[in-house]
């Protein structure tokens, strides 16, 4: 999802002269204006589909937490989405896309730290002369589309830390993640930074750049925060805490699945030619195939391993399949995409219990789905895309992982020291809905998870 760079000389003349960069994007049989319009449309449609993923995450998490924490989980989801919008506007966007104006590094030798400044859109009612990049798409559509990816990264974190983290430290972390941590590492690949220029790293829509990043941040938080009270006992026993509403979790998963067409399809970043629109179509079909593969793998595997199908694993399987195909949704065949997704489903079924063994309490399975399947998906690029190299994929996975995990850990530790990130034991047992919000998700229904 790397943006095409603005040329230094930004005059219209230079653009209309159809330099090599322009010719690459706009084929001769489609007028430049139409390309601009169609690309912009792709970003807008893709962007609002990815926006709806915020709803998917909210419903998935609301369904997988106990009923005494549902209102809080919804609060965190709508708040984090909004904070991401502010963080990405104030700092994130230009840090991620410096367009050559790197604070540290250059386009040629590799950029490490992007530009500082707020995001600025094109003026009202522009003509072709005033477009920031006529060969690409409107800046507003690009900003909107990219912001949604940033917000999705933050959504990943909330599920893993549910049911015991305080609201405000979580929101402060969200701001730092969306304004600084996510944009910096994303610039290394999609902003044309050093992972792109030095390693030839390929990550189409963000198995690593989005999903693993959310997963690493969640992992750091989950370790520092500790498990929910009563989840693990001293003798090694695990005490499951079934979610409040599997229909909601299923709805959330379907919404995420839908949103993923915008996530991956929009990341083609172009729809102004026969080739591009055919590629977008391939991506939609492959994305769907991978999700289906993930579900079927999880359904079969849970039946074989546990004697019963586990719906929550099937839902995680769908998402793991989607994450797995995100690094390369274009080049696989439908069959390959299904298999790549199926491996994601297998990863989930094996790593959810593994995290429990390590006493890392991930309420919704965010770490298996987004981190482990994200790593798999990034490596799976090698299977179908001849341009990928093993080290070119592996080293960036490690660099991004170390960066995000270390910085997140530092931020979590500071927050924990300064204000404490965990609610009191009493508040946790009462549920965050009543203890932190003073309201309940289902005040007129039975006590749900609080019965014997």
């Amino acid at each position, binding site marked *: 999802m790397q943006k095409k760079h603005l040329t230094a000389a930004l005059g219209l003349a230079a653009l209309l002269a159809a330099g090599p960069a322009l010719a690459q994007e706009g084929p001769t049989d489609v007028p430049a204006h139409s390309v601009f319009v169609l690309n912009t449309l792709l970003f807008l449609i893709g962007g609002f589909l990815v926006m709806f993923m915020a709803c998917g995450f909210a419903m998935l998490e609301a369904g997988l937490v106990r009923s005494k924490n549902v209102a809080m989980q919804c609060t965190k989801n709508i708040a984090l989405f909004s904070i991401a919008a502010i963080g990405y506007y104030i700092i994130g966007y230009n840090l991620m896309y410096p367009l050559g104006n790197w604070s540290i590094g250059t386009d040629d030798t590799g950029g490490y730290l992007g530009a500082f400044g707020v995001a600025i859109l094109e003026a009202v009612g522009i003509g072709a002369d005033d477009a920031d990049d006529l060969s690409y798409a409107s800046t507003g559509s690009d900003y909107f589309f990219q912001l949604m990816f940033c917000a999705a990264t933050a959504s990943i974190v909330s599920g893993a830390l549910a049911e015991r983290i305080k609201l405000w430290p979580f929101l402060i972390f969200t701001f730092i993640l969306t304004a600084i941590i996510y944009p910096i590492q994303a610039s290394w690949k999609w902003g044309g930074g050093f992972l792109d220029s030095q390693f030839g790293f390929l990550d189409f829509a963000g198995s690593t750049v989005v999903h693993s990043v959310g997963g690493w941040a969640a992992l750091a938080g989950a370790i520092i925060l500790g498990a929910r009270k009563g989840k693990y006992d001293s003798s090694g026993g*695990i*005490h*499951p805490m*079934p979610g409040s509403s599997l229909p909601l979790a299923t709805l959330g998963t379907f919404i995420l699945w839908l949103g993923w067409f915008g996530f991956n399809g929009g990341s083609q970043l172009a729809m102004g030619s026969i080739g591009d629109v055919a590629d977008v179509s391939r991506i939609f079909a492959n994305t769907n195939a991978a999700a289906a593969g993930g579900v079927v793998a999880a359904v079969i595997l*849970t039946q074989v*391993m*546990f*004697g*019963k199908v*586990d719906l*929550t*694993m099937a839902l995680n399987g769908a998402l793991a399949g989607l994450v797995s195909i995100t690094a390369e949704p274009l080049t696989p065949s439908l069959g390959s995409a299904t298999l790549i997704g199926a491996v994601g489903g297998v990863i989930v*079924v094996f790593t*959810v*219990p593994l995290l*429990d063994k390590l006493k890392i309490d991930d309420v919704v*399975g965010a770490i298996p789905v987004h981190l482990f399947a994200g790593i798999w998906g990034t490596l799976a690029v090698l299977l179908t895309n001849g341009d990928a190299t093993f080290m070119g994929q592996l080293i960036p996975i490690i660099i991004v992982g170390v960066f995000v995990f270390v910085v997140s850990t530092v931020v979590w530790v500071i927050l924990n020291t300064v204000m404490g990130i965990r609610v009191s034991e009493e508040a946790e047992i009462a549920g965050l809905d009543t203890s932190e919000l003073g309201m309940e998700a289902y005040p007129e229904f039975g006590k749900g998870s609080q019965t*014997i």
Partner: protein
Amino acid sequence: MKLIIAVIKPFKLEEVRTALSGLGVQGLMVSEVKGFGRQSGHTEIYRGAEYTVNFVPKLKLEIVVNDDQVEQVTDTIAKTAQTGKIGDGKIFVLGVEQALRVRTGERDEDAI
């Protein structure tokens, strides 16, 4: 008069109710309860982790009958609620000192 308390598997309720109606039983109370007996719960798996369900959902029936009906009612409940598998439940019989029908003020056996 005796109070018969029967704990049965929830899915057997309709069968038991029909059989008791056939005997002329005029009233019965049902509540959803959880508990354990010799079966002591069972294990389930959620997201790959095995856990014990200590309290199994059951239905508790409470029926007040005349002394001469006790054996017939308990036998009928036992017969219809039985599956032969663990967790079929239990039946207790207790004495009842008084009964009163609120609407008419009838007492004891007339009130049942």
